[in-house]
Each structure stands twice: as C-alpha cells, then as structure tokens.
C-alpha cells in the first residue's frame, strides 16, 4: 500500500496542478485528471503511479518519513563542522528610527576597544583553524568604523583568517567605505533594508541625519557596492501599508539593476504590528513582485535547497552574537537583552561549549510539508507571539501558483 508523502505540497498553477516535495525537492505538473487520481490514490495506470513513486510523492505506507528526516537532521548537524560564526556590534547606536526595530528600547552605546581583544581571546577558544565568519551588525555598524578597523587589524595580527557579511542601513556608504569593506573588513556581501520607494522609504527610515535626497543617494550606494564587487541583498520589509510602494520600488530596481548579478532581493514580512499581512496576502504580494521581476528572486535557491538540519545560528555550535556590553548570545535577536545572554566576555568561556537544543520545532511543524525548508523557523519570533515561519514557503507557494 502507498500513501502520500507528508512533505508534498500541491498548488493550482496557471496550467494544471503543481506538486512539489519539500524533502526530495521534486516538482511535477499534473493534469486535472492526474490530480483527481492522486487525490483519491486511485491510479488508472501503473506507469503513472510509478512516476509518482519515483518522484517521492508516494511512499510505502509503513515508511516513517519524519523519523528518517529527524535522524538525518540530528546526524548531519552533529557531523557538520562549520567555522565559528561571530556577530559583532561595533555600536548599538543607529541613525535611523524604524518603527518596527526589535532593538528599540535596548541599551545603546559603542563597543569598547578592549572588547576587541576579549573577542579575539574568545575566538581562540573555538576551532578557528579554518578561519572565522564575522557578521558586522548593530545598531548601524558603520557608525563606529574606528572599532571595525581596530578589530579587523587585531584578527590579522593574530593570523585569524576571516570573511565577513554586513547588515547595514547603507546610509554611511561612500567610495572610501566600499574600499575598506573589501580591503580591510573582508566583506563580500551586505544586507540593506528598503521599506518602500522614495517618500515611503524616507518616512519609514526616519533618519536623524539624512535629508529627503537619501533615497536617491541609496540607489547610488547600491550601484557603488555592486560596481565594487560586493553582493547586495536588498531586504524588502513589507506590511499592509507599503505594498504598493514596494511594488513601485521593485519596478525601479528592475529597470536600474536588471543585468547586475551582484544585486538580489527578498521579501521580509513585518510582524508584531497591527498592519501585518495574512498568510494568503503574503503569497499574493510575492506573486505581484515576481510578476515584475522574477529574475532577482533566485527561485532555484529555494527549490533545490537541501533539507535544513537546524533552524538558524541558534542551533549551530560555534555561532555567537556579542553586544556592546560584552554580553554573548546564541540568538542575534536577543542582542541588548542582558537577561538572555549565555555569558559575558568578562567571564571564562565555558558557556561556549554547552550543547544546544533544537529551536522552533512546534507541534504544528510536525504536520507542515515545508518543515525541511525551515526546521521550525525563528524561535525568537515564536516566543514573541509572532509567526516564526521563514520566507521559503511563501516564495515556493507563490512560484507554484505562477507557473
């Protein structure tokens, strides 16, 4: 006897039905008649049934798929040995006043110089023989470039190889900064958030030190980064009230950067405020963005993604975030919240070697076909009563409905 795989997701596409399996990454198009047969598990030909089996859409009734997936996740996460990943916050200060910032109300301030030495001491206790991955975060990290220079020089002096990523609002970028990003801070990729086109962007970022020309300057900065060889991931923060403006922005970006392989974007749905989008609206917004520019979505990255064996850095050994008080966290969303720290740079570093629990796996995840794509999603969102699901499922749903 056969049963449907618990990882199947079926959508009505523009020409028939699409069936995608989130564990086996298989995708097929069914005619209306084939869909009826699949739905009833009653196939008119052995050949058709065999195709469903080969694609993993049908499995033997006594196969325990979730058991194998759990074993795969556990063993793979044990055997993976990623380089240490350290998120540092040169400053928790920021020149933007985004209403949705999850760091709102936490302690602001700048990283002390001596913490650079302590972070290097900390890294030395981890296995950094293959290097270390640094995420420059904040606040707005570029508001304390002096500390970034000092820390990067220190890593080099200690012969600790590092590569880096930056999360920034981008407002402090100029030609000189792009040069330093590449040559001094080893940044190959940066995430910059956009909250809409022109006026909406200016209104939502609410900068303390930028005038209304900031939006056009930001477009120039993206070009500057891309020309400088740095990949730019544009995060589109979306809620009910800025959908139209986001679509206008995407049209603009498509016209300006269509041929640039260094620029990509992805939607991020704002939660925790009254204007959040429903699950259905999220899919529809992505479909609308795809209709303007599918090219920059890199859909294959989602469809071919191997099963996620852990949700995020929270579950990854050797991954830590450090704030300006020297507090160490295993979740970057906890930065600035002293009570959530697992340790402090002023202590010994025993806390670094504690085994980590799996995050996010809620009872409803056990029945979700998208589980292999997110492994439970964001624990911090879940604990804050927000929707923890990652973007993958919305993008896959939107794509299947669009083809």
């Amino acid at each position, binding site marked *: 006897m056969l049963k449907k795989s618990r990882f199947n997701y079926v959508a009505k596409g523009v020409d028939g039905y699409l069936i995608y399996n989130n*564990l*086996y990454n*298989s995708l*097929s198009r069914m005619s209306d008649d084939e869909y009826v047969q699949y739905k009833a598990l009653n196939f008119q030909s052995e050949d058709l049934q065999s195709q469903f089996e*080969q694609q993993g859409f049908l499995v033997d009734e006594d196969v325990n798929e979730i058991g194998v997936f759990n074993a795969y996740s556990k*063993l793979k996460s044990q*055997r993976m040995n990623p380089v240490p990943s350290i998120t540092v916050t040169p400053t928790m200060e920021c020149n933007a006043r985004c209403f949705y910032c999850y760091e709102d109300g936490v302690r602001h301030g700048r990283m002390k110089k001596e913490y650079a030495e302590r972070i290097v001491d900390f890294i030395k206790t981890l296995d950094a023989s293959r290097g270390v991955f640094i995420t420059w975060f904040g606040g707005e990290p570029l508001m304390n470039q002096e500390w970034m220079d000092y820390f990067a020089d220190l890593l080099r002096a200690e012969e600790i190889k590092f590569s880096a990523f930056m999360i920034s609002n981008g407002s402090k970028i100029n030609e000189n900064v792009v040069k330093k990003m590449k040559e001094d801070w080893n940044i190959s990729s940066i995430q910059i958030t956009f909250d809409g086109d022109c006026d909406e962007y200016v209104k939502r970022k609410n900068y303390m030190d930028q005038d209304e020309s900031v939006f056009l300057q930001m477009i120039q900065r993206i070009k500057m980064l891309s020309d400088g060889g740095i990949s730019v991931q544009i995060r589109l923060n979306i809620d009910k009230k800025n959908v139209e403006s986001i679509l206008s922005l995407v049209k603009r970006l498509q016209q300006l950067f269509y041929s640039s392989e260094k620029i990509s974007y992805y939607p991020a749905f704002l939660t925790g405020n009254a204007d959040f989008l429903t699950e259905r609206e999220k899919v529809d917004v992505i479909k609308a963005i795809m209709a303007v520019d599918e090219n920059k979505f890199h859909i294959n990255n989602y469809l071919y993604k191997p099963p996620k064996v852990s949700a995020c850095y929270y579950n990854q050994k050797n991954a830590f975030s450090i704030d300006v008080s020297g507090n160490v966290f295993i979740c970057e969303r906890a930065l600035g919240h002293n009570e959530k720290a697992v340790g402090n740079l002023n202590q010994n570093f025993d806390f670094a070697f504690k085994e980590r629990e799996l995050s996010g796996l809620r009872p409803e995840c056990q029945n979700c076909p998208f589980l292999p794509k997110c492994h439970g999603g964001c624990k911090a969102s879940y604990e804050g009563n927000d929707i923890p699901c990652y973007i993958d499922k919305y993008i896959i749903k939107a794509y299947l409905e669009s083809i």
Partner: protein
Amino acid sequence: MDTIISANDLVGLVSEVGKGSSPEVCEKKVGDMIESQIVKEKETQNAQKV
C-alpha cells in the same frame, strides 16, 4: 505528469531505511549517506579550487 525537477538522492534513502528499520539501522544508513555527501561536497570544493 510532466517532471520539472527530478527527486534528489533522499528519495531512495527514505524508502530504503524508513521501512521497518530499527532506529539503530536507520541511523547507521542515514549516517553512511551523510558521510558520502560530505565526501562529495569536499571533492566539489577541491575541484572548484583547482
């Protein structure tokens, strides 16, 4: 039915080890597959370096 993307290697593994295997056998076979994946990934990385 039109195949757009063919299933990955996991489809064979799950049907083989998920059916009536004891948890120990299941873990052993999954572990072997992961080892071979890791070897393949390293080979690909080395080839890219060359």
